[in-house]
């Protein structure tokens, strides 16, 4: 068990999930410090920071990754690790990790320019989906039914100022049955899964999808465990879709998991915040050598 005063919870935005985590820490009588990442800075020369462990709940991917790297550099054990944060926070790096592990995913391509993206979309076939490399909640995820829409959307993408925006993540559209699946893995243990149902094609809870408990089959458990392992995420929210043949495909792995919807659907079966806290205090690292 971590000694009192040696745990930091890094977060700039305290939502219901972070409050549940703080409550779980309080219930266990653990001393911790909440670190607002907006106040963090690191020198390349300073002595180690005073935290043995840190739970990284920073909502911004760039800040989360740099916070994790900075803390790891001075010896803090960070959950999730900087590597997991980097891999999970970038959809293409996630895709590469899943492919290396031989895990099933929709056909995916990365185009380094909007011009190349048109070729990639034609190769993947219509309808296709374009996703920002970084980001969540279905934001800016674009359904591309035909070449005319593809050309129009890519023209907009080309006009964006950031070079990273011009790198286009293309994925085949999976005609899912009005739902996808969010499974939670902590410390290599599959806690459970929920369906996320929506009238909209994007089934994110942040977009109003409703959750209900989903039975975890052996196949599903193997996939989500494999996805957490492939991305080296101690705490992983693995999103899956069922294709028209009922086959499970992995969409993404989330490293700063929002679990309100999951907790609501699971009720008393699992205390997610408690499991996160217990893992951070006693269980890490799961995948690191």
């Amino acid at each position, binding site marked *: 068990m971590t000694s009192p005063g040696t745990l930091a919870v890094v977060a700039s*935005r305290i939502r219901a999930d972070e409050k549940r985590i703080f409550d779980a820490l309080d219930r266990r009588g653990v001393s911790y410090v909440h670190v607002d990442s907006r106040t963090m800075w690191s020198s390349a020369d300073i002595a180690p920071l005073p935290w043995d462990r840190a739970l990284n709940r920073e909502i*911004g991917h760039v800040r989360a990754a740099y916070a994790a790297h900075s803390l790891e550099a001075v010896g803090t054990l960070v959950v999730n690790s900087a590597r997991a944060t980097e891999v999970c926070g970038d959809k293409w790096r996630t895709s590469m990790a899943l492919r290396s592990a031989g895990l099933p995913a929709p056909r995916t391509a990365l185009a380094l320019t909007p011009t190349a993206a048109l070729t990639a979309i034609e190769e993947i076939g219509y309808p296709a989906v374009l996703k920002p490399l970084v980001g*969540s909640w279905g934001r800016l995820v674009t359904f591309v039914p035909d070449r005319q829409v593809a050309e129009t959307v890519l023209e907009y993408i080309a006009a964006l100022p950031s070079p990273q925006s011009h790198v286009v993540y293309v994925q085949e559209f999976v005609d899912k049955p009005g739902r996808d699946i969010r499974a939670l893995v902590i410390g290599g243990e599959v806690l459970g899964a929920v369906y996320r149902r929506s009238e909209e094609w994007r089934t994110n809870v942040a977009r109003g999808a409703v959750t209900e408990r989903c039975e975890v089959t052996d196949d599903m458990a193997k996939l989500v465990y494999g996805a957490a392992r492939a991305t080296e995420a101690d705490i992983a929210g693995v999103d899956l879709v069922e294709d028209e043949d009922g086959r499970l495909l992995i969409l993404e792995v*989330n*490293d700063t998991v929002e679990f309100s919807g999951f907790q609501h659907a699971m009720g008393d079966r699992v205390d997610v915040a408690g499991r996160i806290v217990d893992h951070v205090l006693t269980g890490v690292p799961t995948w690191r050598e």
Partner: protein
Amino acid sequence: MIACPECEAKVDLPDAPRLNEILECGDCHAELEILSLEPTLVGLAPEVEEDWGE
């Protein structure tokens, strides 16, 4: 009870408010952030940034 900095409507505070906690104004639906606890101060929460997510 505090005043929403956007519309001045009254906003209830949670029983155990936390620093940086996000609240929503019931009237104008602005997202608010608790900036200090003693005294309680709230401001408009930062807008969603491009890299925010899970």
